[in-house]
């Protein structure tokens, strides 16, 4: 008979258990073991990703708070700051899409108001398997409704996002939610424990047996076995969250709190441990004081419960009564569950009896760190060597354009974003679908902020280093296309198992690429999240998906830009090079069934120059529309600007010797945007392009009701805008309804 090894069921390895033994100097009891198991999970401890996260640039003149807090904080002038972070809820959403996605939104919103900020915008980045499968459609319906219902009820607009459908996410969808908050710089709250003797207040929902070991669960591959061990699914209560948010913001407004920490993954355990750890103190908790929803809960269950909509608050001296009044006003239950000590221990009592005691720092700072083995995967080498010349040049451009517009990943996401209230708070001045990023005004100022989330995971798969750069560059470009200067980044690293050398190599490469681009573009990483073990039943990793969330600033919000062509007679210009790369494009996949080829070269320095050009042209008021070239290439970019403006375009291109026509029309080479401008502004634009060393090419005119593209004087595309609009507009709806 093999001896029972309870730590394994909790997700700890034998060698990790040995470390626990050494730290404790004795065998831990079940409660103590549970604390280690959740705190040392990847989700809380970042044991596989910490060495990589160190590579990110995290400092900059505008950074008030970088990674390490609940969310990053970035100065936007006038004594105001943006607070933002992105977080994954992939595994819960795979099991229960509606509640998984809803509680994901709830979690990220708490991270923002924990910092003292009023949440002003939500974004999300979603990945699903293909829509031809009913299970995937079920996941899409559930996730979208879950995100919508939660944010809508809270009254925070969901203003932007991205959605892709690809077989690599079959069975393991990705649901990443980002929240952006606004705070007066002087009122930023940090999760720091106060002096010895200070009470800890737990407020919000009652504690039940929900999601026990959720953090561990999120750090494993999904399997039949993990599903059977599945804890009670957490159900979101957005109404409770709304009350909690209003009450907490009121406390902060009246300067009543010394510290505040939300309860997220690993519940009370992680939130108490992290607060104590940051404050460098100890803490005593009495589990009997924790208000419960269910009877007979053990200390272990109370400590590990992941019941949603709860907050830990450390009141300022003498503020307890007023705090109680505010909670009463909002109908919230609060109880004092413990207090700060000076012995550095995390002590758990059940009444008078100590049921567990662990060094706080053992849970936070002593979490093991793994430098995993990395290996260049064969597919990568093959992709780079793939002979793109073997792809036939001939094709029906009209059909291909229509087919591309009909690809759900490219088509209008209206079916999705119409389920999100994107106008509440009356700040959204560029609504979803109209620009490359959403733009919000800041009431009481002339400023605006632009926000976006981006990642092209096919590119990341084929070349994770370039893919990492790609995501950062695309995010920054999207902000610039809306007229905003990129400020800073949050990111969510969604990968497979880091224990697989191929996957670890992907992570390592992607992070290096992101870090390099972030450095060049001067957009430091201020927060983020890591979601590993995203694998399907067959043990296949998802495409590497390092999602980049970015925020930018418009000093004058009246200068915001959208993608729609405006007036007949305007000129259409390409800023950036005329390129013909087809490697890794949607076109290559759709028309030729190939997901391979060397990824187009990308240089963040080129991106930086392009962004400077866009911003300086826009500053002078020379641009009427702006839209970047991404999936589907130049043709899709033009079609979208035309559809949005409900007006046609005539475009003429000339090939350089050796260039492929299909590549020029459908290739996705980065660092390029299409703008439109009045005829009298052409000279100014060209001159500025020369000055900043960015190629500027006049490629056509806004005119009529057709999109017409000619290459070397031969018309290859001529389509009515109304027809393109209907294909592009209805592609997702047709599959969902």
């Amino acid at each position, binding site marked *: 008979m093999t001896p029972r090894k309870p730590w394994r069921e909790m997700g700890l390895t034998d060698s990790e258990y040995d470390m626990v033994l050494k730290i404790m100097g004795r065998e831990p009891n079940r409660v103590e073991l549970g604390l280690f198991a959740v705190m040392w999970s990847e989700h809380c401890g970042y044991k596989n990703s910490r060495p990589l996260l160190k590579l990110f640039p995290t400092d900059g003149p505008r950074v008030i708070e970088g990674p390490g807090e609940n969310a990053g904080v970035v100065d936007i002038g006038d004594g105001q700051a943006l607070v933002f972070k992105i977080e994954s809820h992939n595994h819960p959403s795979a099991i229960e899409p509606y509640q998984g996605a809803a509680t994901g939104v709830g979690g990220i919103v708490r991270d923002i108001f924990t910092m003292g900020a009023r949440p002003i915008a939500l974004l999300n980045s979603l990945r699903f398997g293909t829509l031809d499968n009913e299970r995937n459609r079920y996941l899409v319906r559930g996730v979208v409704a879950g995100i919508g219902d939660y944010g809508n009820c809270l009254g925070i607009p969901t203003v932007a996002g991205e959605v892709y459908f690809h077989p690599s996410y079959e069975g393991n969808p990705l649901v990443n939610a980002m929240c952006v908050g606004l705070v007066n710089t002087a009122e930023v709250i940090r999760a720091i424990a106060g002096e010895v003797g200070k009470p800890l207040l737990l407020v919000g*929902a009652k504690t039940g047996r*929900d999601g026990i070991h959720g953090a561990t669960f999120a750090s494993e591959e999904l399997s039949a076995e993990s599903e059977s061990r599945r804890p*009670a699914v957490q159900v*979101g*209560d957005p109404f*409770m969250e709304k009350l909690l948010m209003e009450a907490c913001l009121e406390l902060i407004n009246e300067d009543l709190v010394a510290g505040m920490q939300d309860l997220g993954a690993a519940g009370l355990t992680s939130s108490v441990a992290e607060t104590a750890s940051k404050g460098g103190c100890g803490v005593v908790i009495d589990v009997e004081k924790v208000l419960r*929803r269910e009877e007979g809960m053990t200390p272990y269950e109370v400590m590990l419960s992941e019941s949603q909509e709860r907050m830990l608050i450390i009141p300022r001296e003498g503020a307890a009564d007023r705090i109680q009044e505010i909670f009463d006003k909002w109908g919230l239950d609060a109880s004092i569950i413990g207090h700060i000590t000076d012995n550095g221990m995390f002590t758990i009592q059940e009444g008078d009896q100590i049921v567990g005691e662990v060094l706080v720092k053992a849970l936070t700072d002593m979490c093991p760190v793994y430098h995993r083995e990395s290996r260049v995967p064969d597919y990568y080498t093959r992709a780079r060597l793939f002979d793109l010349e073997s792809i036939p040049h001939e094709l029906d451009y009209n059909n291909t354009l229509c087919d591309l517009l009909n690809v759900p990943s490219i088509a209008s996401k209206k079916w999705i974003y119409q389920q999100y209230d994107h106008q509440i708070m009356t700040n959204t001045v560029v609504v979803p679908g109209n620009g490359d990023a959403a733009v919000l005004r800041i009431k009481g100022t002339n400023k605006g902020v632009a926000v976006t989330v981006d990642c092209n995971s096919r590119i990341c798969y084929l070349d994770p280093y370039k893919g990492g750069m790609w995501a950062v560059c695309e995010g920054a470009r999207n902000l610039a296309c809306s007229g905003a200067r990129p400020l800073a980044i949050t990111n969510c690293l969604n990968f497979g198992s880091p224990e697989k050398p191929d996957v670890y190599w992907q992570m390592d490469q992607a992070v290096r690429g992101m870090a390099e681009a972030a450095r060049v573009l001067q957009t430091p990483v201020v927060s983020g999240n890591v979601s590993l073990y995203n694998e399907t039943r067959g043990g296949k990793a998802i495409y590497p998906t390092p999602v980049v969330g970015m925020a930018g600033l418009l000093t004058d919000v009246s200068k915001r830009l959208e993608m729609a062509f405006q007036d007949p007679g305007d000129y259409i210009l390409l800023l950036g090079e005329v390129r013909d790369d087809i490697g890794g494009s949607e076109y290559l996949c759709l028309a030729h069934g190939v997901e391979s080829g060397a990824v187009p070269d990308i240089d963040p320095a080129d991106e930086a120059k392009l962004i400077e050009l866009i911003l300086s042209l826009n500053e002078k008021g020379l641009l009427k529309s702006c839209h970047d070239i991404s999936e589907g290439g130049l043709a899709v970019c033009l079609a979208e600007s035309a559809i949005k403006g409900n007006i046609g375009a005539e475009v003429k291109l000339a090939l350089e010797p050796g260039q492929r026509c299909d590549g020029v029309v459908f290739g996705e080479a980065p660092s390029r945007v299409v703008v439109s401008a009045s005829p009298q502004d052409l000279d100014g634009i060209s001159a500025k392009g020369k000055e900043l060393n960015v190629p500027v090419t006049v490629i056509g005119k806004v005119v009529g009701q057709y999109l017409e593209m000619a290459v070397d004087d031969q018309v290859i595309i001529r389509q009515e805008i109304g027809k393109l609009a209907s294909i592009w507009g209805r592609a997702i709806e047709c599959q969902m309804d």
Partner: protein
Amino acid sequence: MYTGQVFVTLKKAVLDPQGDTVKRSLHTMGYPEVKDVRVGKYIEVKLDGATRQEAEERLDEMCRKLLANPVIEEFHIEIVEDDQ
């Protein structure tokens, strides 16, 4: 023709924010005697079937596939034969 009555309820351990909110409001409305409220669904399905047993089996299948979400809900069926 049969009428199937399907009762869909949240599993016991699953939080029911709706039920809790209704309970609180009943208290403020002057019904302190209410100890617990759980809100579920009641679905009436009219269906043909050769026999009552067949109808019941098919309905049970529909519940497992569509009408209830096995991750968080339980269901219970009652079936009656309609008068001609």
